[in-house]
């Protein structure tokens, strides 16, 4: 899918902001005591983690659906140049054990990879062809007009629902007429390299553990893009998806909330989705996701700290937004310390080499206080529990080979995500173009 919204680049201002943040972080680090700078945001994150842990505990177990009959379902699959995955998606959708009528609408959104021609021969689907690419939201909106079901499942063309996923999610939707959308448990399909394994852990904690806790607090902020189940009347009432939004799956949930709808969730509706397998693709995806928060906070500023919308407005949304700024501070600190250490190391090695002095592996760089070590340990402990629970929710045992991956996840993936937050912030300052790709 592609969507481009032109920005108004401000490179001079962006450069000034980079320099200003660099100087501030440099001063704080050189003062030798950045303990509080690291501890205070991490303690807030710890508080949120405990909120979710207790909410998860209070939520109890989710019952599996026992409904014999469910309303008509329209499965909408927007497809753009997805020749390599769309047919696997269709196979998974067609294999659904749905106790009711189900139609499958595929919207070819101006594909140029030959998938359109192949889709024309596919059986059991209704194919809508768009000559010009309109983006995912536009494609869904077109299909929505002709959808016959009372319920709509929006499925990405690289996502594969388990056979009972639709039945489980629609059952939850039918429990309460106030629910506008049900979020599913998204898992990573084919985690066959380290980057995908990191995302697998991230998805298990995010869409598995956290989503259950946040659901209990009625504060879900996103209906996962790979597959979410909507009440068609709710979508129609709010005017469908925003076609000029880079994170339409986030925005639609916020708009549904503003229109009085609640967000449901079930971990029994499992969807597997393809995830970026290389850093470049992950970078593009995450910049879009994180810029989406900035974009939509500006669009729906009235949602921030508005008691009318409960803990979603008072807790989850502010934390998500603040997290992006924390990422900026952490990235700059990490970059500063790394560059300072490298410069120091190069000079030390050169000096030692030039006089034939013995090398020492003892570091003389920035030290760490005992208090920081204790505090770091205390902050990490609850996360060990979170990962353990997430694996359990994901139906996975933590094997011996998972332990190094989990450690690397915390050591490298966390800073990488902070870096993405940082770039997002700078792109927002620069007012770079928004792209959905």
């Amino acid at each position: 899918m592609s969507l481009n919204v032109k920005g108004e680049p401000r490179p001079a201002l962006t450069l000034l902001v980079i320099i200003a943040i660099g100087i501030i972080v440099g001063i704080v680090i050189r003062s030798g005591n950045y303990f509080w700078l690291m501890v205070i945001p991490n303690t807030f994150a710890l508080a949120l983690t405990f909120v979710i842990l207790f909410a998860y505990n209070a939520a109890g177990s989710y019952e599996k659906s026992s409904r014999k009959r469910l309303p008509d379902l329209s499965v909408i699959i927007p497809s753009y140049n997805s020749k390599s995955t769309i047919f696997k998606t269709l196979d998974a959708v067609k294999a659904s054990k749905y106790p009711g009528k189900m139609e499958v609408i595929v919207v070819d959104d101006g594909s140029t990879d030959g998938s359109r021609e192949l889709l024309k021969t596919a059986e059991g689907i209704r194919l809508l062809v768009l000559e010009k690419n309109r983006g995912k939201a536009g494609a869904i909106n077109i299909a929505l007009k002709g959808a016959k079901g009372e319920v709509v499942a929006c499925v990405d063309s690289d996502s594969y629902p388990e056979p009972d996923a639709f039945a489980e999610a629609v059952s939850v939707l039918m429990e309460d007429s106030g629910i506008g959308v049900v979020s599913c448990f998204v898992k990573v399909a084919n985690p066959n390299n380290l980057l995908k394994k990191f995302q697998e852990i991230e998805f298990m904690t995010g869409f598995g553990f956290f989503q259950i806790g946040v659901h209990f607090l009625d504060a879900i902020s996103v209906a996962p893009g790979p597959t979410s189940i909507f009440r068609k009347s709710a979508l129609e009432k709010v005017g469908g998806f925003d076609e000029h939004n880079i994170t339409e799956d986030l925005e639609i949930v916020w708009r549904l909330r503003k229109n009085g709808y609640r967000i449901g969730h079930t971990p029994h509706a499992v969807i597997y989705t393809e995830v970026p397998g290389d850093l470049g693709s992950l970078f593009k995806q995450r910049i879009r996701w994180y810029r989406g928060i900035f974009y939509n906070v500006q669009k729906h500023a009235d949602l921030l700290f508005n008691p009318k919308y409960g803990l979603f407005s008072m807790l989850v949304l502010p934390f998500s937004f603040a997290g992006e700024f924390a990422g900026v501070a952490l990235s700059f600190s990490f970059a500063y310390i790394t560059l300072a250490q490298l410069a120091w190391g190069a000079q030390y090695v050169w000096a030692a080499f030039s006089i034939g002095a013995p090398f020492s592996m003892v570091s003389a760089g920035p030290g760490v206080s005992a208090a920081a070590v204790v505090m770091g340990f205390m902050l990490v402990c609850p996360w060990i529990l979170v990962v353990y629970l997430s694996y359990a929710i994901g139906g996975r045992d933590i094997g011996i080979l998972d332990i190094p991956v989990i450690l690397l996840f915390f050591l490298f993936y966390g800073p990488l995500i902070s870096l993405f937050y940082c770039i997002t912030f700078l792109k927002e300052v620069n007012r770079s173009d928004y792209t959905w790709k």
Partner: protein
Amino acid sequence: MEVKNQVLLKAALVTIVLFAASLYIGYSIESQSYTSTESKLNEFHEELENALLFSLFIQTHNQTESTCAVLRDQLDASGQNALEISQELEDNKVTVFTDYNQLRGRYFLANMRFYLMLREYKQECGDQSLEPILFFYRTYGDCPTCYTQGRVLDTVRAECENARVFAFPADSEDLAMIRAFKTYYNITGTPSLVIRDATYNGVIETDRIKALIGC
């Protein structure tokens, strides 16, 4: 109370308890370490006081071989203590709840006193088997070459029984004695060494230092 509020309350309580507990543990560890260094520094001061009395005794009562030997033992013990204190000060260069700057200041003054007493001892007792080396550095984080010189001096100290290294931060301008030393020995950069009253700027390799101190 509504279940959601209970969740929030529990989370707040656990966070506060965990936060307070970790702060308390961190504070206790730092305080303990600070107290230990402070006590070693007090001991170092006492040893120097003793050494000073011996030195005065030698000056007023003509030195004897036995009093010089006792003073030498006293100075050797102080040297070991000084090394341990300097290591602890280095280990605690970043702290949150304790301020080591005052201890550092006291240590450097005591170490200068130690250096001067060692020279006095050499003169009074005629013992040429000890070679004090003055080492001026800047905070290691800012001066990788100082770190290199420090490692070289570690090697010299390990290989030469007669070497006694006295390290001082050249950037501690608030200590008047350090300023006086720098002026006297014409220390203009770091790292710098003073061996037998001659000043050497820049990094000096192990063999050259060994040759200069007759090791």
